[in-house]
């Protein structure tokens, strides 16, 4: 792409070259702001090292970055709001995802834009990952705004997330799951249940996986074993969710990435695995932890508890940042220790409490069908259809009962009876699917009693 037609780039634009393993789908990331005198200006550019997927000169990058701020002079968002813009510019052959926010620069309040630029050919690849990237960028922007308020350099804060996101996208290029998974690569191809995976373990893993909204991490020492389980769990996801899942890499170099649905992770040579507490907590959904070495399944609390803990942790993290006396005081990943008011419960993974009948009967039955004839995939499709329809029914039931949230939901018992969800595990699975359809459903249904109990606990602790 020629940069001749673009305005000349500012000589002051700083650039960071990021070393990314493998081919990076990202062309560049930019941080731009609206200068009250000069208009849109690019402050920093991050580009992956290595041969670019698309020839994009610095001038083009600057031009595109400036373009993301077009029209933002009209912005009337509330302070602190982070708005997302998404461009597909066929003329330039690029896709830009831009997060617009306000921040203090040189004493003035400016409109800023943090953008990631990808080739348009990566649109299909990127879209399933959009929510993951945006959520992670939003949080780093929250931290960055505090940094800007304090007059520190936001670029270092942004860099701490831009690089992992580039790594994430790069890893997804090579290790993401396809939309269609061959049953032959999964446990579902076994002649009989338990052939390659213990029956109870498989049941518990799938059940918990569904109870945690299809969000799971599979850890183990054998990459084949891990990936088989990853593929098996992905069978229970939608095609776009599968593309937001990642296989483990044989050499184990992938780290946990918040926001992926299923990800396989290898233990190190000593057989241990370091779980990044903060990242796991920042996942939009609770996560199931599955260890294929020792056949254990642990899960995080349900969505409303997870959301509460997550937000508390975020608040604590931001508070600590706010209180930091200097730029060196706080490293992004360690700030939680600086906040004395919140002691997170590090024991976030618990045993799977709720037994279900839905998954149990499915597993009992699906292995009765002959493998290799698409019978099982048909039966799986029927099972998934059932789950999705039940989830929608549950959602509409609650909608009807509460007049679309105008009234509190008080008829859980009736719901269970009417919708044949008397078993707690079944209810958890369907609720988890409904949560994905209507974000915040758990908090709406179960939130108030939970928050009350939390308050009681806090009051009790204060005595």
């Amino acid at each position, binding site marked *: 792409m020629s940069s001749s*037609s673009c305005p000349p780039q500012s000589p002051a634009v700083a650039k960071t070259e990021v070393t990314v393993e493998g081919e990076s789908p990202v062309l560049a990331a930019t941080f731009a702001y609206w200068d009250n005198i000069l208009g849109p200006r690019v402050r920093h550019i991050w580009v992956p090292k290595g041969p670019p997927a698309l020839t994009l000169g610095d001038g083009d990058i600057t031009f595109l970055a400036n373009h993301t701020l*077009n029209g933002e002079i*009209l912005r*009337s*968002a*509330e302070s*602190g*709001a982070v*708005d*997302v*813009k*998404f*461009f*597909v*510019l*066929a*003329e*330039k052959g690029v896709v830009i995802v831009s997060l617009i926010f306000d921040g203090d620069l040189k004493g003035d309040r400016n409109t800023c834009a943090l953008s990631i630029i990808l080739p348009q050919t990566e649109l299909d690849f990127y*879209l399933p990952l959009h*929510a993951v990237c945006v959520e992670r960028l939003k949080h780093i922007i929250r931290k960055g705004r505090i940094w800007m308020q304090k007059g520190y350099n936001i670029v270092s804060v942004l860099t701490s997330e831009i690089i992992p996101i580039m790594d994430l996208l790069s890893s997804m290029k090579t290790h993401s799951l396809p939309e269609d998974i061959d049953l032959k690569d999964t446990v579902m191809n076994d002649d009989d249940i338990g052939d390659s995976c213990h029956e109870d373990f498989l049941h518990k893993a799938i059940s918990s996986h569904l109870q945690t909204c299809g969000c799971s991490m599979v850890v183990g020492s054998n990459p084949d074993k891990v990936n088989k389980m990853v593929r098996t769990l992905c069978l229970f996801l939608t*095609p776009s969710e599968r593309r937001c899942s990642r296989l483990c890499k044989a050499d184990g170099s992938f780290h946990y990435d918040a926001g992926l649905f299923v990800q396989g992770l290898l233990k190190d040579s000593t057989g241990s695995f370091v779980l990044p507490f903060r990242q796991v907590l920042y996942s939009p959904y609770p996560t199931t932890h599955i260890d294929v070495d020792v056949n254990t399944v642990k899960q995080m609390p349900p969505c409303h508890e997870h959301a509460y803990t997550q*937000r508390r942790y*975020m*608040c604590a993290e*931001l*508070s600590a940042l*706010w209180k930091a006396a200097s730029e060196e005081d706080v490293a992004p990943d360690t700030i939680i220790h600086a*906040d004395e008011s919140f002691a997170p419960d590090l024991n976030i993974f618990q045993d799977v409490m709720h037994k279900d009948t839905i998954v149990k009967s499915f597993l009992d039955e699906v292995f*009765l*069908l*002959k493998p290799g*004839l*698409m*019978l099982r995939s*048909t*039966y799986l*499709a*029927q099972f998934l*259809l059932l789950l*999705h*329809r039940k*989830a*929608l*029914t549950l959602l*509409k*039931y609650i*909608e009807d*009962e509460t007049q*679309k*949230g*105008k009234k509190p939901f008080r008829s859980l018992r009736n719901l269970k*009876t009417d919708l*044949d969800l008397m078993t707690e595990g079944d209810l958890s699975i369907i609720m988890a699917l409904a949560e994905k*359809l*209507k974000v915040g459903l758990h908090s*709406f249904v179960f939130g108030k009693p939970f928050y009350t109990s939390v*308050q*009681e606990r806090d*009051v*009790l602790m204060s005595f």
Partner: protein
Amino acid sequence: MIGSPDLLAFTKENDVVDSYVEPSQLPEEFSVPLFPYCGNANPWSKTSYAKFARDFILISEFSEQVGPQPLLTVPDGPKACGTFDLNYFSLRIMSVDYQASFVGHPPGCSYPKLNFVEDSKVVLGDSKEGAFAYVHHLTLYDLEARGFVRPFCMAYVSADERKIMRQFLQLSSEFSKASECLKTGNRKAFANEIEKKLKDLEYTRAVLHRETELQKLNNGCYSTQAIEKANELANVEKSIYEHKDLLKQITSYPNRKMKDPEFLPYDSDSLVESADLHRDPESESVARGELDDPTNQRRPSYTPQLIKAKSAKCFDKRLKTLEELCDLYFFHQTMDQLKQIEKTFRGDLCNIYTNQIEQALLKKQKVTNFLFEDFSTWEEDENVKQFCSGNECLLDNLPPPASVPSGEPLSLDSYTSCVETVPIKMEPETGEGGPQEVEMTDSIPCEIAQDNLDEGTDAAMKGSLSSGESIEVLGTEKSFKAQGSQVNSENMANVPSPQLLRVRRRTVTKRANSEDSIEVLSTTDSIIPEDLRASYPSAIHEEDSTDAVEDRTSGQMFPVNPGTDVQDECVYKTGTSVQVDATCCMGQEGLAYEEPSPELAQECCANGVVKQEPRPCCQRDLPLQVDFVLDDANICEDPLAGLSHEPNPTYLLDETSRMNLDDLSDSTSFMSASTSSDRTCSPFLYGSPVTVKQKKKAGQSAIRFIRQYPFAQQAIFCLLSGRTLVVLGTDEGTVRKLVSALTIYLPNLGKYGESVKPWLSSPFHLSDLQNWKLIGIHKMASPTGSSVLHSLKRYSRYVSILDADNKTLRCPPYKGTLMERLVDHRTQIKRGATYFLHVQSMLTQLCAKAFLFTFCHHLHLPINGGEDDDVVATRRMKFLHHLGYDQDDCHVLHFLSELIKCYYLHGSGKGVRPPVFGFSYVTSFVYKI
């Protein structure tokens, strides 16, 4: 000790959300809300602060005169956008326009160049206004606009940001199509405009040339006027050149989008509809694909005018409207597309998203979609035998044809002892004569035929049998077994092909004379054992004629001889040519039968009796196997089992009469045509495909039905087990409503609801019961009404009757758990649509179980050579019990399984229905409110 109640005092019960105080003093604008929903916020209220009630499409323009301005909305009218400030939002969405391409005079070029810019797509939002939009920017051409371009955008505006991003690809695709359509029309209009301009210029040139010549003649070549005219002429010449170049550019548009097979901006069909009075004649040529063809010679009736060579662009000039910028046909096409987009993406994201997931999942289960799904998911009759892989085929897994759950094999004697031979005259459908006629072993008057003739209802009823009012002629399993011993070898010799795989056996017809005057008959050639595959479909239960409480001992007429293991089973193969030689005893003209293979017949039918069922070596033929096995285990389970030789009702149920009506469609239609006009019309929905939307609407009636009628479970059990349910009433509205309500439970409804006859005011026939599983009948006091009731009375034992006037239901009892979950009158579900979703879920589950039962390997085949059919049958029953289905629930599973099998084997060509018309005799009860 401090307990929970004490602590509650420290909490604000009504506002726990706001009571939390974060001690870190972090300013709110830098923090995140600790609780997802504060105050009255809830998962549904995220979009409530938007100033518009529902999504809409906005078309805006960046006018060179007044700047960004909204042009129109879809839907139009002020209601679409409420109090939302369209001007402000137009400014917002147009300010992000990205059209960097150069249009106008490029450097080094003396005349303007058009640049066909690609559309750009942007998602943006105004969080304060609660409005988010997918914005599709495009550029149209206007000869009078600055740089010949007019920037426009089409925006899908929604209050749900998540919806926009989740549907981005779909929105992008749909808007791209609309944009291409609009741009195509614009290019055409632009080309027309240039052509007109060229004509004007050429006319002007001619005039100027004439005037110049005149000037030269009058004033000489170098006069001021002559020079002025010459300059003017030169300008015109230049302008002509420029416009010709523009025309060339616009008509030589690479049209790459048009080459996209998926792109179809217009079609000839819709042309007729959309081309209204405003359509100009050239639209026709456009519709013929002549657009953008430089060789296309347009010859509109246009009178050239004298113009100035260079038109001054001034801001007081009225710019063309969007409609004027585009060819009308394309404009209206675009508007139609936009309306369709608005309709497609209307509503809650969860509905749209779930629907998309469902569509994807349904594509993977085509073999069962016909049962309960919207026709669109299964109308494409793709290769449902997708499961076949290499040499392996699901046929191997299909259950043997007979759907008799279990039973002790009966001796042939046991049949003959209770069933008389009935002479049945069979007439060929195609009029092929003598050779196909059946020789009857006995001669019993064909009373049904006489009745039918008397009624004059249908010539096709000729050959049907009846013994007055008390005789119904049916094909029964028993009779088939008896027939097995009387195969007419002569007729079997009529073999059309050595490859015949299906055997047709000529048999005598047996008649069961029972104390309650019920005759059970079979056809002769009309029934071949292969046709005995499906028995539960169309199960008709015999009732006592005396009253609701049936005397179950009537089953004594079928003595059981458990010790006899004669089985009348054979393998039949398909592929024979069809010969019609008989009319079934029910008056079904047109039954098509296939000639037997003598070799195979001899193999299978030693002494005329088929004794041995082929073993798995013929696995591919298993679906065509016949299973006559009756399970004595069931007999033992029956409360009446203690009575010797007293079959239990279950057993009687298993004693299924069957008749092959697979090929009766023609005769049925014939009968329909002959009896009443409303037989010929498309049932249920008057020719329109049944949609989920209609079913959702019926959900309200359904929920009312299950609350009002305590016997709803029994009624729905009938529907799900294949027994025709007749809704009887005087008021058409009431009957139709009840039929509509019950439709949502009906399996294999058909694309147009063919299985439903919502309102019938003429007599129906037995064959109709094969096609119609839910019938609304007009109860009226008139000759016609009496004939209707007469037919109903005649066949009442084979149907369930829901009397809407008396609020009664006459049907077999139901004992099971399946219906409790499906039909619970205590349900707290409030809305019909939600109840429909619940029913849909339950039916999905049921469908999956039926699939499992149908295709479960090792379930329908002997595991080892030592296993006999009893064991297999018992295993099947145990399997269903293990799945949690009780005896009556098993009938539902069997019926659905048979339908799946039929669909798998035969597809939906003739409509999915079991090839066998079977009846089971079971006591009926009258249920009252």
